[in-house]
């Protein structure tokens, strides 16, 4: 069966969210062992940020693919810049948060890195497996 961009990106979004959820649960367990309750909160924050970060890219491609080449580039690159500014603000607030103890801080980092690298591997596998048909797209 041949796929289109929409079905591939929907699959990427669904399975990516599932993978981030699993990594967050594992991170929460490790966080609890390392830093107690703040460790669990740190893993949850890291997981949520990773989900938002990877999900927004896939969503921007999904939405952008409906609008031809110009709309696609606008959605992906505009989404990218918006996301970077959003994350700069979130990280700035999070790094000053009092509930995030010194022991719990690395949990945020490692949960984000594990979730992002995991979703990257999953995305690559899903896209390598996808069978996309060549179709002439209208730019209107």
């Amino acid at each position, binding site marked *: 069966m041949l796929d289109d961009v929409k079905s591939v990106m929907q699959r*990427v979004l669904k399975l990516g969210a599932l993978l981030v959820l699993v990594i967050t649960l594992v991170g929460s367990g490790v966080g609890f062992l390392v830093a107690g309750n703040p460790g669990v909160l740190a893993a949850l924050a890291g997981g949520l940020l990773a989900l938002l970060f990877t999900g927004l890219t896939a969503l921007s491609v999904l939405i*952008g693919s409906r609008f031809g080449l110009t709309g696609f580039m606008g959605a*992906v690159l505009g989404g990218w810049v918006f996301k*970077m500014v959003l994350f700069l603000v979130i990280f700035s607030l999070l790094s000053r948060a009092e509930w995030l103890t010194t022991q719990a801080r690395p949990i945020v*980092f490692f949960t984000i890195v594990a979730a992002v690298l995991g979703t*990257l591997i999953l995305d690559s596998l899903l*896209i390598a497996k996808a069978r996309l048909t060549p179709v002439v*797209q209208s730019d209107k």
Partner: protein
Amino acid sequence: MQIIQLAAETATQVSAISGNLGVLGYGIATIGPALGVGLVVSKTIESIARQPEMAGRLQVTMFIGVALIEALALIGLATPFIFTA
């Protein structure tokens, strides 16, 4: 002579700069992903202009490229959580 004086004044001013080094770190960390995204996007536009029927495949391939590059940017943004002053 004036040039030497000016250089000495500038050196004093530069050594007097203080603040959060994270600002410089963020500036440096943006260079790599910015160049990467620029290259990926320019090549994708070029490829779609050459072969418009391949747009779908190129878009999802570009997604992988952008995702890899932004992972680097995200790790750069998240490093304050492990590098404490």
